[in-house]
């Protein structure tokens, strides 16, 4: 039951993009085409899961450990350490993508390195730490947060593809209408509040 709550919470109720307003940069930047959005979603799910797993390991076993009978607490390093780890992970993915899927690499462009500083990934790691999730819980939470991000991104990308063909007035073309759409989408997600 706990995991069901984690799942529903991460995907719908506290959706990273539409409820917590984290990860807006790739949400706006990589949502012009559905195909790219899918690739980005996959990358984010992967990074978030892995980052959640590793950072929760670090949080539980490195940031606070027993040494020589004393507890050493270096919790103040939390943010610093998390950023370092996430940056490293993204670097790895970028290197691998460039080789394995140059098309996706091209399409993601600048947004891939931007996951490095993506608040969503760091957010997931921090939320895990704040809620004191176990490593398994944190990994599940990270994965489904990624899925929630993917859901929002896919919905948004498909909407934007449709808006591409719409007669949007010139002043609202591009990011303006995208933000309005995102706002209405977020309104729709409010309906899920209270589910867990």
């Amino acid at each position, binding site marked *: 039951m706990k995991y069901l709550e984690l799942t529903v919470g991460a995907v719908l109720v506290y959706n990273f993009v539409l409820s917590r307003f984290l990860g807006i940069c790739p949400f706006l930047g990589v949502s012009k085409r559905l195909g790219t959005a899918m690739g980005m979603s996959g990358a984010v799910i992967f990074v978030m899961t892995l980052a959640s797993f590793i950072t929760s390991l670090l949080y539980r076993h490195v940031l606070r450990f027993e040494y020589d009978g004393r507890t050493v607490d270096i919790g103040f390093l939390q943010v610093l350490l998390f950023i370092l780890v996430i940056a490293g992970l993204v670097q790895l993915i970028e290197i691998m993508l460039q080789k394995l899927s140059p098309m996706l690499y091209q399409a993601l462009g600048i947004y891939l390195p931007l996951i490095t500083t993506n608040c969503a990934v760091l957010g997931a790691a921090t939320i895990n730490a704040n809620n004191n999730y176990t490593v398994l819980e944190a990994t599940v939470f990270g994965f489904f947060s990624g899925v929630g991000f993917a859901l929002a991104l896919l919905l948004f990308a498909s909407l934007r593809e*449709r808006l591409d063909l719409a007669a949007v*007035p010139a002043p609202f073309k591009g990011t303006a209408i995208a933000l309005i759409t995102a706002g209405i989408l977020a309104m*729709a997600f409010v309906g899920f509040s209270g589910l867990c």
Partner: protein
Amino acid sequence: MSDGEKTTEVMLPTGSDLVLSVSPHLSAADSVRRIMYKVLLALIPACVAGIWFFGWRALAVIVVTALFCIGAEALWCRIAGKPVLGTIADGSAALTGVLLALNLPPEIPFWICLVGAFLAIWLGKQVFGGLGNNPFNPALVARVGLLIALPAAMTTWTPPRGMGADSPAAAEFYSPSTLHKLQGKKVGLDSVTHATELDSVTCATPLGVVGTTPKILDKSFEAQQNFQAVDNNEMLWRYFLGIKGGCIGETSILALLIGGILLIAFKLINWRVPICYIGTVAVFTGLVNYFFPGVTPTPLFHILTGGLVLGAFFMATDMVTSPITPTGCIVFAIGCGIITSVIRIWGNYPEGVSFSILFMNALVPLIDRWCGQRPFGYTVKREVAK
């Protein structure tokens, strides 16, 4: 005509007035404007029922909101340099206005109607390029926007005609103090002070009552009886007729059904959509009710209360914001049904129709993509080969 010499002059065409256009050169008689007016016509029974149950105030809300919407549309067209009259004449702004009004409580202040009208027409429709381009149902954008921003005003319900203090289950719908006040009138207190006090009489909606009733998670007798007061045959009949608190348009299921049948008769909607939507809610809530009778009332209660019928017939079938293929429409309706049920049973909001349709609106492009139909002459294999 006489045979022999034809003296009558034959009039030959000069070809000076020829129109050049692409085939086909004929068209069906229907137009966008006619469609909008037909939907408006189908909404009349619901409007009449709303006015009957909530009085002239409801009429005022409907008229004022429709006028505000038309005004908002005119203003936008004026600013954007679009033809004002032509855009208003298609009736879509008026339709949005009436739909929005039917989704508002009867005692709503008029300034909220104004805000709603601008939300619907400007934010819901015109920024996307006007009629046909909006991915979300404008009336629902406004309703959900208002519900989030002004929750108190949007959930203040007034009792309809025929729901006095002596009506069945009155204790469930009125707070004790309100009930007192209402009963006080029967005894005959000072009428002047009483009238002003009566203005602020509020009641709960059946779904609201259910939402505040503590859930019982077992199958005990208490669980079976948990919703007995609001979910029994007599009450269901009253809900069907429209004697329940709620938005102007969602009271009388009878009137909505008449409108729905009109829509189907005009061939404006696919009858499968409302059936699937309502059916999904019935099945979902039915299953939950069967296993956990203390968690949610019976399916019939869910169908007859709240905005389900209004939403199923008039909102989920909105052409612009629902999928284009028949299969897609069914998927859309089932999705709406599931989300509505989930929100009603477990969510913070007692009612989930608006949210569910708005959410499914966002899914429409994906549904369109995945529920497309296979063109004539294609087999699965060929498509892969292509």
